[in-house]
C-alpha cells in the first residue's frame, strides 16, 4: 500500500514539474501572445495542480495529516487560472496586439462592439 502511494506521489510530482517546464518552453517558443496563452494557461494549471496533489498525498501517507488548505489551493487554481488566461487574451486584443502572421481567420475584427480605429502596431 505504502509502495503504491509512494509511486503515485513520485509520478504526480514529476508530471507536474514536467508540465511546468513545458509551459515555460511554450512561452518561449510560440510566436504570439494568444498561442503562448494556450500553453501557459493549460500546462501550468495541470502542472501546479498535480504538484499540489502529490504534496497532499505525501503528507497524508507520511504523517497521516490531511492538509485541507492544499485541497483548497487545488480548487482555487483550477477555478481562477482559465479566467486569468481569458482576461489576458481579451486585454491584449482590446489594446490592439496583432495576431501571428500565419493566422487564417479573425471573426472578432468584424464584431460590432470592437472599435475599428483602435488597433495599432505593437
Amino acid at each position, binding site marked *: 500500500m505504502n509502495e503504491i502511494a509512494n509511486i503515485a506521489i513520485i509520478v504526480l510530482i514529476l508530471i507536474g514539474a514536467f508540465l511546468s517546464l513545458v509551459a515555460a518552453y511554450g512561452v518561449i517558443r510560440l510566436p504570439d501572445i494568444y*498561442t503562448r496563452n*494556450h500553453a501557459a494557461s493549460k500546462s501550468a494549471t495541470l502542472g501546479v495542480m498535480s504538484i499540489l496533489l502529490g504534496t497532499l498525498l505525501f503528507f497524508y501517507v507520511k504523517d497521516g495529516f490531511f492538509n485541507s488548505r492544499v485541497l483548497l489551493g487545488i480548487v482555487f487554481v483550477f477555478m481562477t487560472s482559465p479566467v486569468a488566461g481569458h482576461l489576458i487574451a*481579451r486585454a491584449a486584443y482590446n489594446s490592439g496586439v496583432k495576431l501571428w502572421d500565419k493566422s*487564417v481567420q479573425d*471573426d*472578432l475584427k468584424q*464584431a460590432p462592439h*470592437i472599435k475599428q480605429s483602435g488597433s495599432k502596431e505593437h
Partner: protein
Amino acid sequence: MAFQILLNVFLGFMWMFLTGSYEPVAFLKGYLFGLLIIFTFRRFFDSRFYLLRAVAVINLLFIFIKELILANIGVLKVLLKPKLDFRPGIFAYPTVLKEDWEIMVLSNLITLTPGTLVVDVSPDNKILYIHAIDIEDAKETIDSIKNTFEKAIMEVSR
C-alpha cells in the same frame, strides 16, 4: 433546488428530534428517509428531483478534469513538434445559453479544451469569440465537443 435541499435538512432534524438521539448518524438516517419522502412527493415541486441535478453537477466536474488532461496532451503535441505548422485563428461561436453563470462555466470549459481559448464574449451574451490554435481540423470536432458541453450544462440548469 435549494428549497428541496433545505426541506431535506429540516426532515433530518425532525428525525433527530423524533428519535431523541442527537448524533450525526441519526441526522444522516433522517436525511436519507427525507430523501425518500421528497422523492415520493416530487410531483408537488416546480423543479426536478434535486438528486438528478447533483448527479449532473458531478458529471460536469468529471468532464472538466478529463478535458484538462486532454488539453495538456494536445498542447504537448503542438509544442514538441519540430515545425510550427499550425494555423491559428479566431472564430465566432453562437451559444444558446442564457444565464451569466452558464456562459462562465461554458467559457471556462472551452478554455480548458484542447486547442481553444475564449478571447471575448459579445455584450449581449450571444456569441463567444474563440481563439483556436489549429483552426482547420479543429472546427468540426470542436463544435461536436461543445454540443456535449452545452448539453451537460443545460442538464444542470434545467
